[in-house]
């Protein structure tokens, strides 16, 4: 054993090996993999289709016209008829920027599924600590940052895959693509999902750096994910929210992610604040990841 091999001096050696290990646990485990596909189907097919907002505004739901005297002329009745039949589309369009609430919510789901996918990264950090795997990795010449980034990277890659599944399922269930949609939009969606996935998984990883019990991430999971989802534009547009909730939703990176996804996929009135969306989510990802890496230098040990 005297010969000395050339050992990689690359600072990030081992990063891909660790990332690939986490990904293997996902794609080699049929239950986890299939559940990752079934879950978005359930959300979209059941919740997405059940909340049929457009149905609420259909003409048949409106009260019958009162009988007027003198009766309307034929042309007046026609105009009024046109007005009412256009009312639904017009209200939907001004509220949701699209006539299909399903499409509106399906694109919110893209962000939703990212939150859930990345939340699991926290549990995987705790598992690795409990099972001793983390201790082994810590005793090898892999930098602490590589250990952290591998977790974050694998969760971000999974997020992209999950977002793609949601988009495909939504399309099969009747997603109405907007005029903004081009082939390039798909890559734009993947990019923003990757960024938000990076930021969120850094957040969950940072929380679990010192955790030794599964209860910790599970408790924090609900505390963080639910406000992130409800105080965002996932289900309802921000400009119709009460004034106290607006600032929260406006600072929520999930809102920017969802806005970007909708502008790319289902809106028809131009890209608008798309650059701002990318800048905000990108800054969120970079700042949170940096914080997480710095914390890992101090707290990721025995």
């Amino acid at each position, binding site marked *: *054993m005297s*010969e*000395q*091999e*050339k*050992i*990689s*001096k*690359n600072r990030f*050696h*081992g990063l*891909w*090996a*660790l990332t690939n*290990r986490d990904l*293997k*646990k996902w794609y*080699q*485990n049929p239950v986890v993999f299939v559940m990752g596909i079934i879950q978005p189907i359930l959300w979209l097919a059941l919740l997405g289709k059940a909340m049929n907002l457009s149905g609420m505004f259909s003409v048949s739901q409106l009260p019958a016209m009162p009988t007027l005297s003198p009766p309307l002329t034929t042309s007046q009745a026609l105009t009024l008829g046109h007005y009412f039949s256009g009312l639904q589309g017009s209200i939907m369009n001004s509220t949701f920027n699209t006539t299909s609430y399903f499409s509106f919510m399906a694109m919110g789901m893209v962000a939703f599924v990212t939150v859930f996918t990345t939340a699991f990264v926290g549990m995987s950090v705790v598992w690795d600590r409990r*099972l*001793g*795997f983390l*201790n*082994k*990795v*810590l*005793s*090898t*010449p*892999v*930098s602490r940052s590589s250990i952290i980034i591998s977790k974050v990277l694998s969760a971000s890659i999974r997020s992209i895959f999950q977002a793609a599944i949601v988009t495909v399922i939504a399309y099969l269930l009747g997603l109405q693509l907007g005029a903004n949609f081009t082939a390039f939009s798909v890559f734009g969606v993947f990019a923003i999902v990757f960024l938000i996935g990076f930021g969120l998984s850094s957040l969950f990883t940072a929380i679990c750096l*010192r955790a*030794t019990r599964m209860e910790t991430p599970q408790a924090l999971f609900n505390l963080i994910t639910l406000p992130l989802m409800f105080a965002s534009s996932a289900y309802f547009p921000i400009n119709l929210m009460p004034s106290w909730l607006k600032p929260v939703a406006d600072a929520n990176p999930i809102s920017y992610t969802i806005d970007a996804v909708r502008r790319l996929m289902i809106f028809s009135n131009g890209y608008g604040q798309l650059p701002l969306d990318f800048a905000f989510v990108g800054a969120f990802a970079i700042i949170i990841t940096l914080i997480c890496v710095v914390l890992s230098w101090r707290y990721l*040990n*025995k």
Partner: protein
Amino acid sequence: MSEEEEIIKVEGLTKVFNHSLTAVDHINFGVRHGEIFGFLGPNGAGKTTTINMLITVMKPTEGKATILGGDIAKQSLDVRGAIGVVPQEYTADEDLTGYENIILCADLYGIPKTVSKKRAMDLLQLVELTQFKDKRVQTYSGGMRRRLELACGLINRPKVLFLDEPTLGLDVQTRAATWNYVKMLKKEFGMTLFLTTHYLEEADALCDRIAIIDHGRIVVVGTPTELKDSLGGDIITLGIQKEEDITDLISKVEHVKEVKKENGSYMIKSSNGELTAPLIIEALRKSGHVVTKLSLTKPTLNEVYLQYTGRSMRDAEESRETVMQQRVAMRRARQ
């Protein structure tokens, strides 16, 4: 590198948890090139804490240590690259195969794939896991997992290998096999080994030198023979037919250091039991006494342990469940 050169140097190493629990208390020792150095002590004595500091996964509160010239606090990445670690727990990833686990370890050390593939196969052969290499680790037995951990610890061809309780919870057969691996590593590869154990037989059978650690302090360091000799030698137990005090008679025999009468038997300490026993029999026969029973006991490390800590090592040992509970409690205290 000379035999006497110290590969591991430890000066005043100390670890205090939560500002109150002193797990390791200003310990000093050196490990020489090519030796098997053992840390012997009961559970909670500070063995694992010491190893964790040496392998740089835990920061010392005070003191310093160097391994192969590298400071464990300042050059931790270099130190980690040069040493191998076989931890107490099973750390392999259960969802991966044995082969995948070894390759993953190789990647963590930055060993290129061209090298690691061949080396992994060699190591699997060494620990006799070749036929199970493509089975997931969750199907492995305890002994197989232990061997896989050993293979992972050797992937970077370390100059120093750290083994934390290498045979904890293993059956007698697997324990003997593990001892053989450890001896082979020293003999075939000239590796320096640092191991912790709370099994006296293990320390006696494997180690060139032993440090006995108790309550975070090293109470004595030496070869097993030196330690046993420090007790004053062998013990001869002897009984005679007549109820008569022969203490003075025995004291005059060559090599006899001490004679004590206990329950009608005589406990005789001698620096050389094999030589002394016939001389005593001869002396007694000449003065007309008949020896009815005689036994010769070589001192064991248990007596050494008793001598230096005031407690029997056997008393300090507990059931495996208590050990596990203690370990969980310790781990929580450290968080």
